[in-house]
């Protein structure tokens, strides 16, 4: 099954890259990438999100042409590029460590990307790029004389200067310190949107994926678990793995009858109609905890975090995570009662095995 | 592309250097005789004729076998060997060109091959050299066969890879048979001889105190005594007729495969010229093969030498291979 999100927009824009049934294994071991398919529309940013070892970087390297897939095909503008060597694909990549040529200055690095532009015009173009990435004045420096953020902008400018059909970003922000990461991320997104280039980004940072991308593809063990807008991925996870990777969640086994579910916490509504036993994901902020001397719940953990307050509550032998607004009045061991205040999300997981990803991930 | 041009130019410079090195040579001489001896006379030839000669030095047997192995493709034009045996071996193999008669006509029989395929450049005698400080007169061996006795244990220097030594072993095989020769070689080996590369170092080895006796050619010792009157080495013959007193020759031949027969014969003629012959006897202390040469006062008179020498025809010394095998079986090689 092919995942196609945002059908409403598909009609307006053409497909930029399509991946069909991509598979790859190394040295006869398990498949690192297993029958992967997706499409990215022109001008979109797709984030491939997943824990390390989930196959997202291998996917990126296959798209770039650095690895040969065992099976499957890659189409750029509908043209099959699977067997094309990297230099013939016109796909740009910015590496995690930027891969700036240490023996070239900033301007030389950027001009190296302008292979197809006549040398006479390169000098004029370089100014545009230097301005765009705000590196004017640093063009005669060598990479080692730049900060991490500056190096990254040079790498981006070098790649964009080649005017690629597709831009690949491999964990682009992981080498930056936390303080710099947010601003760089916003600047870079703005820059990318200005140039209108299509992007595939690989990251293990869910916040990065949610804020940066138009589409997020959650990967696990070489498979795509869910593909959708950041809102869809966060608010309507299809399985436990996605729900848990994007923030905390409570997985509750519920007996569904239509949109009414019976749970150990009492009755709740769900987002879709189902009948039978299902796992339901309830985000901590969708639970309410109140002091109740009669209540069966007990506060086990209490973390005051400034804007909000995080509790772990024991209730009838189960632990529940609850996120309360900033007032943090409950104490350890205090008797409380729990209430679900928002409809839960019904998951597709096997009720007997909530974390069996092979079953739960999209094939 | 700057880098690329740079690399191309480096490689082309190397190629130019290489082709310069590999330029065609005029004459190639394989010499079984030592560089110190050959170089001056060859340089004289180059000066006189303007013909360039490249010399490949090696041991006589090595080069003789090498020429056979190279066969038709041998780069050598001439072969200058240390002994008649090697020359005979090559003549038997049919590798040598026949020299013009006038080159060797009139020389004593001992100095040419019967078929005119090689000619002697000088004559020499085998002697026993000994230490004047460590050897008493009564210890001097009467026969080369005495050297396997216990009193000579660890005292005798031999150069088993040397062509003259090997020719002497061939002569022993001719006169005394293979079995007797092998017995002697094995006895010598068991007597812990001192192994040297050549005659010069064997003689020097006596002076340096490494050995007391050495089986060498006659002309090496005078080179030392000429500059060092107190040189503690003397030489003598064994009893008359002993195979240890073999008289042998150094010979030169032109290869059939040489593309420069005329230039090669020119070198042969030069080596038989009075000037070269005088050099061999005066500087190299050998016996000249042509008359009209002032004899060297340091050399024992030819008559005495021939008196001591065993009676043998030099053409019989051609079985070099058999000698090498025997030396190998006795563990000398």
């Amino acid at each position, binding site marked *: 099954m092919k995942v196609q999100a945002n059908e409403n927009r598909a009609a307006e824009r053409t497909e930029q890259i399509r991946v069909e049934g991509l598979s790859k294994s*190394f*040295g*006869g071991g398990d498949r690192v990438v297993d029958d992967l398919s997706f499409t990215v529309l022109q001008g979109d940013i797709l984030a491939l999100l997943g824990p390390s070892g989930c196959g997202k970087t291998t996917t990126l390297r296959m798209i770039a042409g*650095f690895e*040969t897939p065992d099976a499957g095909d890659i189409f750029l503008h509908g043209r099959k590029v699977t067997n094309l*060597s*990297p*230099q013939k694909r*016109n796909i*740009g*990549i910015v*590496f995690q*460590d930027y*891969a700036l*040529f240490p023996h070239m200055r900033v301007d030389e690095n950027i001009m*190296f*990307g302008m*292979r197809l532009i006549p040398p006479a015009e390169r000098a004029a173009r370089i100014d545009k790029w230097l301005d765009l990435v705000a590196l004017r004045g640093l063009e005669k420096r060598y990479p080692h004389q730049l900060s991490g953020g500056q190096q990254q902008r040079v*790498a981006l400018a*070098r790649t964009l200067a*080649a005017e*690629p059909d597709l831009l690949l970003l491999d964990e682009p922000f992981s080498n930056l310190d936390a303080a710099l990461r947010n601003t760089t991320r916003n600047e870079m997104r703005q820059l990318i949107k200005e140039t209108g280039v299509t992007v595939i980004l690989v990251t293990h940072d869910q916040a990065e994926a949610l804020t940066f991308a138009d589409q997020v593809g959650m990967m696990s063990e070489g498979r795509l678990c869910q593909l959708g807008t950041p809102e869809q991925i966060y608010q309507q996870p299809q399985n436990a793995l996605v729900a848990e990777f994007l923030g905390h969640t409570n997985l509750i086994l519920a007996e569904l009858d239509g949109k009414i579910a019976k749970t150990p916490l009492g009755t709740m509504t769900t987002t879709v109609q189902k009948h039978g036993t299902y796992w339901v994901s309830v985000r901590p902020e969708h639970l309410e905890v109140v002091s109740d001397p009669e209540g069966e719940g007990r506060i086990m953990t209490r973390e005051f975090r400034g804007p909000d307050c995080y509790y772990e509550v024991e209730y009838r032998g189960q632990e529940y995570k609850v996120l309360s607004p900033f007032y943090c009045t409950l104490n350890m061991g205090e008797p409380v009662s729990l209430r679900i205040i928002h409809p839960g999300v019904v998951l597709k997981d096997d009720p007997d095995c909530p974390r069996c990803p092979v079953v739960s991930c999209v094939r | 592309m700057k*880098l690329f041009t740079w690399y191309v130019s480096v*490689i082309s410079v190397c190629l130019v*250097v*290489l082709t*310069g*090195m*590999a330029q065609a*040579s005029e004459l*190639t001489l394989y010499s079984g005789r030592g*560089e110190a001896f050959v170089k001056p006379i060859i340089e004289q030839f180059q000066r006189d004729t303007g013909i360039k000669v*490249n*010399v*490949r*030095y090696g*041991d006589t047997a*090595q080069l003789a*076998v090498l020429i056979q*192995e*190279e066969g038709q*493709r041998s*780069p050598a034009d001439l072969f200058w060997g240390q002994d008649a045996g090697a020359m005979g071996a090559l003549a038997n193999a049919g590798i040598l060109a026949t020299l013009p008669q006038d080159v060797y006509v009139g020389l004593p029989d001992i100095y040419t091959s019967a078929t005119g395929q090689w000619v002697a450049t000088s004559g020499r005698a085998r002697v026993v050299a000994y230490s004047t400080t460590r050897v008493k007169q009564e210890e001097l061996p009467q026969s080369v066969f005495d050297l396997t006795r216990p009193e000579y244990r660890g005292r005798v220097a031999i150069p088993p*890879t040397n062509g003259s030594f090997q020719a002497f072993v061939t002569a022993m095989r001719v006169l005394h048979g293979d079995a007797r020769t092998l017995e002697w070689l094995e006895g010598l080996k068991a007597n812990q001889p001192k*192994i*040297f590369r*050549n005659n010069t*170092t064997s003689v*020097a*080895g006596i*002076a*340096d*105190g*490494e050995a007391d006796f050495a089986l060498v050619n006659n002309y090496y010792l005078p080179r030392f005594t000429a500059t060092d009157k107190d*040189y503690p080495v003397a030489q003598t013959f064994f009893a008359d007729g002993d195979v240890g007193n073999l008289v042998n020759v150094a010979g030169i031949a032109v290869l059939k495969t040489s593309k420069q027969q005329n230039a090669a014969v020119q070198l042969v003629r030069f080596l038989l010229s009075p000037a070269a012959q005088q050099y061999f006897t005066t500087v190299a202390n050998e016996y000249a093969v042509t008359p009209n040469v002032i004899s060297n006062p340091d050399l024992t008179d030819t008559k005495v030498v021939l008196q001591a020498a065993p009676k043998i025809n030099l053409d019989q010394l051609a079985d070099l291979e058999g000698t*090498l095998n025997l030396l*190998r*079986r006795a*563990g000398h*090689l």
Partner: protein
Amino acid sequence: MTGYNELMQYQIGLMRKWIFGAGRKAPPSLLVPALVVAAAMFVPLVYLVARAMQADRQQLVTLVFSSRNLELLINTLLLTGGVLAIGTFLSLPLAWLVTRTTLPWRRLVTVLAVVPLAIPGYVMAYALMGIGGRYGVAARLFDLQIPNIQGYWGAVIALALYTFPYLFLNLRAALLGLDSSLEESARSLGYSNMQIVRKVIFPHLLPGLLAGYLVVGLYVMGDFGAIALMRYEAFSFAIYNQYAGAFDRIYAAWLSIMLLALALSFVVMEIFVLRRRRLASVGSGSIRPAKPAVLKKLLPVAILYLIVVLGSSVLLPVLMLAYWLVLAPPDISIFLQVPWTFVSSASAALPAALLAVVLAFPLCYLAARYPSPLIIWMERSAYIGYALPPLTLALAMVFFALQTAFFLYQTIFLLIVAWTIATLVLAMGPIRSAILQARPNLEEASWSLGYGPIATFFYVLLPRLRRGIIAGIVLVFLFCMKELPITLLLSPTGFNTLAVSVFTRTVEGMMAEAAPFAAAIVLFSGISVGMILRREKAL
């Protein structure tokens, strides 16, 4: 039928992985030259065996099972054992003195201990041979005629003095890497000093010592110059005599194969011993060096020892050369030959160095970027040329030229090819580490910007490899400049090198005439020693 087809598919898949590896396919533009280079490494082996097989059965029995071979084997083993024993005596206390004591001038002593590497075995033998004898320096200066140093002890001393720095460097590194907390914990457990040396320090030094033994042992087995000058009848000398004196090439080939087998068994033995003793430091944290011992009563002994070691390995050859150059110099014309001989040496050594580097590149690059079982084996095959005793290699190349490539026979090209085979590993060392240091990302970035493999090589990879390539060229060049046995057998008629000049003159006892050439070699080898010192950054 489908089952069979699937099996075939599976087999083909396995084969593909064996050849190309699991990742991207290695580009044929590199794979083909690398295959050719790897195949070329087997050429000497093939010709050696082919030549040896020409013996008929009768001949074979007499050749292989003669008592002479046993004598040569024992002599070679005695020589190797003697060199390793004396080398250990020269290096172990020295390494301890410079790493674990308060000995003054430790840095200088360390540098001096590496200097003997600049004096090749045959030059060391030359220096020793100039002392004794009627015309030796002892007789000339002090009127003291001592016997010539030669034979077994001459060869052992010459080779030990030349090679002990290898052991020293290994032992020094091992001692510096020894965490003092190991000793301290042993001490706190109540072990005596002797027990600590035996149970803690020695097992830690062993891998370094054995690795040094492997390098030195292989070198000694293959050495020709010092052994021939000292006239010690080891395998290599016998091989040369077969070639030079008797010219029985079948026997020479068999002797070569026996020597090769000896060298191989040595390697296997080392691997076996080393594998059982993998002593990586367990636990985290940086290594804390031990507190240096204060030499009190031992200081005079240490100084005496230093005088013996450094005096014989550094001072002696330098003084001997100085004597023949200054006090008893040869004719001026000999000095004038040195520059020409140098140019002659270099004219073959430089192409060999460039060729070795050019050929090393595809092997190193493939092994670093496209490792597959085949490519790993191809890379390893380069060690054949290094492990082959040089005389064996040269002899095999003579066979090769005579039988197959006569156009190469007695040309400088054959010498260059043989040198290249012998030195490929030397060139690969720095190039491999340079490639490993240059991240593959850089090349991938260049490809993704649309540059092909050749443009990527020149623009991106080469600038990163420049240092490694230059180091490779220099290493091979210096090796060839002082190489003796291969040169002696393969140099074309009329071609002369510094090393051959030293050898042929020393053989004739022309010590003064050899001196200028020997001095040139020592000065030149000093550069390679300088490079080794620079690599040992701590010095």
